[in-house]
């Protein structure tokens, strides 16, 4: 349980009240929370999972591995065929499950982990090799995490993108977005879309819709935290056609099926 507030006295009152209701153990300032290490300084708060990363590496016996520069080979397209099936898929699932938890503080491995977790049903040898490659990358900087700077403005900025027809098996596209609160990164996602898009504009548009949902939710959350958000949140997209559709929803043959998403933006 994490408690914060703008008044030290109120916090102490809350602690005393909770202690009267339940028996609580006061763990002091937030330092280590569900495997996440939190450190605080004047510049801001950092969040990392150094110990968790090292535990994964130790478990995979890759503590002595050669560090890699990127989490995954660029342009690597994983398919579900190509090598022998693993004899013990449990190990693969275990590793991928741990890596999913690691994405809490490592946004850069989100895409790799998302791709790898699509194969936990029937992992093959080359999937496991890709996981090991990812672990090599993690070894390069196990203490890397997020910094929430203290001098950042409090308004949301979202960036979204899509990779059209990325998945070779289903030909679906991949949504990717990240949202910042001022300078600090608060949420991100990399996810295969649920439908097949016939144009890259459509794929981009869907990712815009997903990011818009997230931003709307985050604004509600910020309001609940007692912080007012000045003006609308900004959302950046790199596809001109999608921007035009968002600015001026004119439907024709190719776009009328994404009408529903258009209403959300």
């Amino acid at each position, binding site marked *: *349980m*994490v*408690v*914060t*507030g*703008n008044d*030290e006295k109120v*916090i102490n009152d*809350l*602690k005393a*009240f*909770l202690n009267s*209701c*339940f*028996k*609580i*153990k*006061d*763990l*002091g*300032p*937030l*330092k280590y*929370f569900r495997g996440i290490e*939190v450190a*605080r300084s004047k510049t*801001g*708060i950092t*969040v990392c999972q150094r110990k968790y990363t090292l535990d994964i590496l130790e478990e995979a016996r890759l503590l002595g591995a050669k560090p890699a520069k990127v989490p995954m080979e660029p342009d690597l397209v994983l398919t579900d065929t190509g090598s022998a099936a693993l004899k013990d898929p449990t190990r693969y699932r275990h590793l991928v499950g741990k890596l999913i938890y690691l994405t*809490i503080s490592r946004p850069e491995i989100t895409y790799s982990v998302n791709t790898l977790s699509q194969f936990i049903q029937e992992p093959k040898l080359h999937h496991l090799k890709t996981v090991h490659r990812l672990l090599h990358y993690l070894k390069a900087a196990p203490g890397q995490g*997020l910094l*929430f*700077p*203290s*001098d*950042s403005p*409090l308004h949301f900025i979202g960036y979204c993108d899509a990779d059209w027809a990325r998945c070779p098996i289903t030909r679906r596209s991949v949504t990717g977005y990240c949202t910042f*609160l*001022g300078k*600090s*990164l*608060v*949420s991100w996602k990399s996810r295969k879309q649920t439908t097949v898009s016939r144009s890259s504009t459509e794929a981009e548009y869907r990712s815009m819709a997903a990011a818009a949902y997230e931003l709307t*939710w*985050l604004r*509600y*959350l*910020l*309001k*609940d*935290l*007692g*912080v007012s958000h000045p003006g609308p949140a900004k959302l950046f997209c790199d596809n001109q056609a999608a921007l035009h559709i968002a600015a001026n929803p004119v439907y024709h043959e190719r776009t009328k099926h994404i009408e529903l998403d258009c209403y959300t933006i």
Partner: protein
Amino acid sequence: MPIPSSIATLPETITHPQPTLSNQPSTQPNLEPPSHNTSPPLISPPTVATPHLTSLKVYSRFPHTTTTVPLEPPVTTPQSSVPSTSIDPSVSSLTNVTEPPMVDPIQTLPEPRHSTRLHRPPPYLQDFQTYHDAVLGPNVSSASISGTRYPLQRYVSYSGLSSPYRSFVSNISRLVKPATYEQARHDPQWVAAMTAEITALEENHTWSTVPLPPGQQPIDCKWVFKIKYKADGSIERYKARLVAKGFTQREGIDYKDTFDPVAKITTVRCLLAVAAVRHWPLHQMDVQNAFLHGELSEEVYMLPPPGYRRQGENTVCRLHKSLYGLKQASRSWFRRFSYAIQEIGFQQSRADYSLFT
């Protein structure tokens, strides 16, 4: 590899009354290279080779062994459980067979049918004197002695270990978490731990003892034992926790909803980002025995915990507070907590139900 349900040790090598040798089959062959042709009775051959070693025997079907799966007593004293290898094999087989085995009626299962084919040793073993041969004699079936075909005490002994290593092994295997109440009730430390847990539960008014109303089905419970270690490996305390067997609960009768909101990690990050900007202090807390605070809205009856049941009495515990293991434990704890915290003016966020502002 045989899983040791209980371990018998050889009389001259006993170092501790309750040794558990779960790591022995792997360590023993490393320490003592197995010698095949001149194997003394105490040195264990690698367990992998056991099918060959027992292949001399004819698995004669004795009528008195066909109906019971032998259940060895959980606490093995050396005297009772050692089919000593120094005794004449036929005598040991007789004594073990004639003595009534401690068999629970539930455990009495028909023995699976075994092949009646004569087992002959492979020709390459004719040049060797195998262990079973020496110990048992050619005509004694190992199944007739203990019921287990390849009992572990035939293959594992302490005698090959050096004395410091032997004491080390017995020390690490001495600390065994008991699996059941029956195993724990003889140990005063575990009894103390269980008493402490029962006292805590009764102080908490977790249940009241009532006679079982007709038409109700009580759920069972069990003890879970745990040794809490400090960071340096020494023992911090012995802990016993009473858990309900929630898997016997029926949906709609014993529980309804089980969902419990968990804080979204994005919310936590948002909170941290705002706290960094606004310079809010951050504190962390932990509620001890959190689930025990949850109040139950359903009528749940539980059998009294093992060790607190009285013979012939038909009373059960009606649960007022939730217990670890119940399906609705997390939900009822969350309901209790959110009620308490809204009492003092906090509001549940609509965006994330686990956020209170």
